[in-house]
């Protein structure tokens, strides 16, 4: 293997066993004692057993690690594979172009659309250019410009979420990070075209939400969407980022949690171990789901679309009290 395999924290016991097994198997056949051969067989069985159980019933923290896996298919992979005649649009017309945000025009299964998405890089070099997918205000303003374009020309919006969060930098703050996100939320809320959102990896807080709600929310099985990162939640609760696993369990951030809370409409299964094990299969499934959602929404008149989106948002929340509505 030319590229060193990326090992997620929870995979380590399995990988260590696999390496030990590989080492034993390298032993010369002549030097192989019956005892050693038996040990190899035992170890191989243990590896098989662990492999079968490790990826079953993954916990929230394991899912977060899979969502962050560097080989996981990214916005660019979905755009390249699912959209034809793509024209990327650059810049916010005020400050600059943010390479952590994709905005463009593309055709998916014969349907013209505006495409948005957070953009992580494939390697360190690209990640530095793309600021590891952490968007600055100009990125959100570019997205908002593309949303407005979609609204004016009747193009549906397809949005891919994959960010740890909006960038918490000095200049980002000075240029109005909060303002830029709020403006995206307001614009998305009454956009008179269908908005289909796909959680493909990380859904980090306000930076994800800025392009992250609409008429349909499709989540990959191991994607997450959270009000706060598990690490930061752990720091606030326990003053200890190492307790992120525990925090992840409290935040109800997995795709299954979102479906349970009635926030996600569809959860797409991933191959055993995560989307990076078979990207083509996952990308194809996302294409089918997005196509289906766009088809279902295509005939809804614009005013009903906006009214239903508002009603959908208004239902969200858990309120107790006489004038309140009890529910999720």
């Amino acid at each position, binding site marked *: 293997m030319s590229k060193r395999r990326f090992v997620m924290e929870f995979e380590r016991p399995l990988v260590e066993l696999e390496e030990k097994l590989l080492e034993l198997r390298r032993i010369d056949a002549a030097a192989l004692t019956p005892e050693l051969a038996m040990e190899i067989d035992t170890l191989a069985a243990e590896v098989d057993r662990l492999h079968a159980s490790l990826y079953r019933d993954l916990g929230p923290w394991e899912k977060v690690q899979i969502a962050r896996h560097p080989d996981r298919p990214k916005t660019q992979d979905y755009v390249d594979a699912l959209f034809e005649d793509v024209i990327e649009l650059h810049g916010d017309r005020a400050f600059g172009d943010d390479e952590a945000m994709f905005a463009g025009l593309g055709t998916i299964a014969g349907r013209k659309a505006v495409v948005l998405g957070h953009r992580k890089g494939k390697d360190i070099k690209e990640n530095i250019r793309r600021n590891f997918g952490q968007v600055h205000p100009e990125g959100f303003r570019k997205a908002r410009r593309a949303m407005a374009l979609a609204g004016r020309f009747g193009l549906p919006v397809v949005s891919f979420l994959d960010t740890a969060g909006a960038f918490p930098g*000095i200049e980002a703050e000075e240029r109005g990070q909060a303002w830029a996100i709020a403006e995206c*939320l307001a614009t998305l809320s009454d956009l008179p075209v269908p908005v289909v959102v796909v959680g493909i990896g990380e859904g980090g807080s306000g930076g994800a939400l800025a392009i992250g709600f609409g008429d349909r929310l499709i989540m990959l099985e191991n994607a997450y969407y959270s009000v706060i990162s598990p690490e930061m939640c752990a720091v606030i609760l326990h003053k200890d980022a190492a307790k992120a696993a525990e925090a992840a369990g409290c935040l109800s951030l997995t795709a299954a949690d979102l479906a349970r809370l009635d*926030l996600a409409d569809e959860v797409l299964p991933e191959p055993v171990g995560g989307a990076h094990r078979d990207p083509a299969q996952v990308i194809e499934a996302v294409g089918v789901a997005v196509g289906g959602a766009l088809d279902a929404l295509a005939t809804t008149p614009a005013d009903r679309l906006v009214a239903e989106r508002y009603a959908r948002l208004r239902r969200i*929340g858990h309120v107790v*009290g006489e004038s*309140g509505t009890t529910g999720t």
Partner: protein
Amino acid sequence: MPISEWFKAREDRRYTSLDPSAPKTDVPDGVWEKCPSCKHIVYAGDLEHTDGVCPHCGHHFELTAPERVGTLADEDSFAEMDADLISGDPLSFTAAKPYTVSVATARESSGLSEAIVTGRATLGGHPVVLGVMDFRFIGASMGSVVGEKVARAFEVALAERRAVIMVTASGGARMQEGMLSLMQMAKTAAAAERLASAALPYIVVLANNTYGGVTASFATLGDVVLAEPGAMVGFAGPRLVEQATKLSLPKGFQTAESLVEHGMVDAVVPRAELRETLTALLGYLTLGGAS
């Protein structure tokens, strides 16, 4: 007096200060406040007369929601709405301490049902819906109830053609309600957008410590955005920015004054002039839409 005597007088004076070992309980809590800006000890009675502004340096102390309503609404005009809305515990959030305990404690110590108080009022004679956040209630974080009350405030204003005034202070989205809290950002922004589409005015007053999900939703969508002197406002908190960037922060970072410099806020308005300024703004902004 010779100079040596003068020094002696100073020595004596040192012993006139309070004995630090003396029990502090004979000074009733809340009678004296230490100004965090000029360090003067201020008599709380004086702060009542100045609406929580330090008479020595002009520092703006945080106001509770009832105090703030008192400084803004026309006398006896405020009628609270949705006071019976209470937070549940949708995620059974139990890390560190159970969420239900945090809410119960906050309710008891603040006397409020949640972190925002909303109601119909008149301000300088203008019909408004007024919303005021209270930092004492779990850092005025926005969970389902805050989001619901904000959305209803905009909806009542829309139905009755009133202006909306929001005085914000918040640590951000309430993490104990997870994604339900995050989605309140979209919900409140959507409600604000509907008011804007109806050409009804929305004015925000950013008070000290407005951060995260509140800043990144309804708090920055005002037709006019004002801020109190010295108020700290941003998306990510200063400590997080410092940690993430490993840079030292520029002087005045995220203060109301620097936000005006960077074009994010219309004006910094001292508390003593706030009512007057809001009345004047409403006078301009209601002309086109509401009449």
